[in-house]
């Protein structure tokens, strides 16, 4: 009986140790896009969790104490950077975790290495709206920049778990190939749409539009972060009708009031698309989210 008990304990201990070996690294990300990219790179060597929910606007996440607990036990912290997830700074400061501080080995600013767009030149002030001095921070909506983010996450994973380098590197390459394959597919789909002009709600789409040769005709917000006004919507609708702009591109979390008003006045279609993994049942991964965006955009443009 003693032998049997000892055997059972040994088996249980072995199972537990195997389980631990499967996820020794804890990765916390600011949003679900980075969480999915981190999962693709880290595989079963890490557990990954996002601080923001899929339904959140990455600008306006409410920092909460429970987030501090998550970050306090993290080995890697991956953020979008460029001021988009500035709300996370208060979490980092309170976590007391040296690894995830900006000088820590587990800190990954995924915008590192990005050639930023919309970098303001000259003096900027609040009358211009909520501008980001470092440039437009919505780079993750260009699928190709998913590779950049994956590289930055992989580098942080390797710093905290050097033994996993071949594993992370191989998975990073696999992820990159999947993105490249997707780029061919998405590019082919968007080549066929009749008009290259779109009107976004917010300046969220600069990188996406540049990637696929589309143009931002105007923006529903008169200035970044400033609520649309009936006058602005009316003027924009008139201009859209003259040129024949057919698509208003909105994140799923936006209220429908202003896009619907613009659609009714301009004759364009408001396409609501997920911009975070999990925001829509179809967008259950980063690549599936990009698929969904392209399909809905192409569908609205035709």
């Amino acid at each position, binding site marked *: 009986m003693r032998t049997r008990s000892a055997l059972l304990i040994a088996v249980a201990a072995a199972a537990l140790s195997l389980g631990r070996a499967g996820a020794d690294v804890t990765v916390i990300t600011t949003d679900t896009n980075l969480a999915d990219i981190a999962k693709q790179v880290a595989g079963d060597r890490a557990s990954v969790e996002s601080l923001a929910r899929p339904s959140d*606007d990455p600008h306006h996440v409410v920092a909460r104490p429970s987030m501090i607990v998550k970050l306090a036990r993290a080995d890697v912290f991956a953020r979008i950077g460029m001021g988009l997830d500035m709300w996370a700074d208060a979490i980092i400061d309170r976590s007391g975790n040296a690894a995830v*501080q900006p000088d820590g080995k587990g800190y990954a600013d995924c915008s590192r290495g990005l050639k930023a767009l919309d970098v303001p030149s000259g003096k900027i002030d609040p009358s211009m709206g909520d501008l980001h*001095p470092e440039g437009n921070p919505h780079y993750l909506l260009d699928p*190709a920049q998913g590779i950049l983010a994956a590289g930055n996450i992989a*580098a942080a994973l390797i710093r905290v778990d050097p033994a996993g380098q071949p594993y992370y590197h191989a998975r990073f390459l696999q992820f990159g190939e999947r993105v490249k394959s997707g780029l061919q597919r998405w590019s082919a789909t968007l080549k066929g749409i009749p008009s290259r002009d779109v009107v976004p709600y917010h300046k969220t789409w600069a990188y996406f539009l540049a990637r696929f040769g589309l143009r931002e005709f105007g923006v529903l917000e008169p200035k970044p972060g400033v609520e649309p006004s009936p006058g602005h919507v009316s003027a924009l609708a008139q201009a859209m009708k003259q040129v024949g702009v057919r698509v208003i591109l909105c994140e799923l979390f936006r*209220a429908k009031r202003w896009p619907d008003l613009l659609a009714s006045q301009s004759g364009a279609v408001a396409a609501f698309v997920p911009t975070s993994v999990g925001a829509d049942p179809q967008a259950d991964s980063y690549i599936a989210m990009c698929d969904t965006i392209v399909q809905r955009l192409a569908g609205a443009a035709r």
Partner: protein
Amino acid sequence: MRNLWALVALAVCIAAPCSTAGAQTTAPADLEQLKALVAKQAETIRDLQERLTKLEGSSAAVGAQVADGPPVPTMTLPGPTSRPPAAGQSGAASALPDIAVFGNNLGRMLTAKGEPSRSQFRISELELALQQRVADGVLFRSTLAAGEGADFAMGLEEGYVTFTRLGVPGLGGSLGKRRLPFGKLNSIHPHAAPYAETPSAHRYLADPDGVAGNGVALNWLLPVPSLFANLELGAVRVGASDAVVARPDVTGATLPLGFGATGTVPMGRLWLSRALNTATELEMGSSALAGKADSGDAVRLVGADVTLKQMVGAFSRWQVQGEALWHTRRDAGSGLSHTRSGAYVAALYAPDQYREFGLRYDDSRLPWPLEGGERLLSLIWSNRLTESSLWRLQLAHGDRTTDALLPSRRGLTELTLQFVWGAGSHSHPLQ
């Protein structure tokens, strides 16, 4: 001439049969070879054409990726030992700290006739905030403030450094002058608070401008699974409050309004929080300050707070918050202790990213030996213009039985208009 034509005709006659004869002589063998050669060349051309088509196709695909947009990031990783550069909060190419300026404009309407600030809309406070990382794990924050109460003399409201690497996981510290972590509101700057008027309990029992202290504190994130448990302990020196009121029991004497201690003050706050689900969080806290007043009286301020917040959507959220404060003063002469209490409960609802509506009930007495208090019900409407600017209306109705800060009146109705503007990069400690 005849001879010439004859010669030409002869040459043509000779040449024609010769060429025909030549072809006829090689035809049987070479024709088959020639046909085979043509077929082989045709096959080679077909093969080359197929390869060309394939190459053209793949060039088109590559072009779709690269020529249509910016270059695709390379599939190389940063070196395994490389570390990210130690960057500031923003503006990586600048050696300057993050600098922000905030203005808080208040206008009190419908107050009693004769009240100095009645129906005037003017700047109440201007803040200049600076912050930056100064070393690995060390961050400094400072706020210079010029307030209406001090005739806009610029003073140091906060100036402290925080340490995040003290060798023990979860342990941090702070050194310098700052608004003390007492309850949910004391450490929040007026421009960042969700109200135009601070709740009565904080104004009368703590400090109308917030209790600030200069000293050291340790902050420990307790290792409790699935629960945020943060304990902060410290010792600070607290100066005399700017707000004073006449002491009713001593002719001509004044008494600082609020906490009232000066000198060294031990402080403590236990802050607990638990996520009930992905959208809901429940927070509870208790805080304490203790010290001696100039008169020799021992004073103690104890607080308890509860906050329940739910993030319904990307922008829509609601929050219910309540705080209770107990101010105890032990008279040095008689040895008797006197406790006065105050509380507020507020419900806030934000339907979108631009608007927030609130309802707040305040009930507070003044600390002993001052008499009177305030009981108000407020409606609050905030409209955000940008991330750092907003206007707000707070309409209050109730009774005030003290002139300590505003004129006493039963059945009063007051309207406060607030306009907050800001510029520059700035972040607040979580509270």
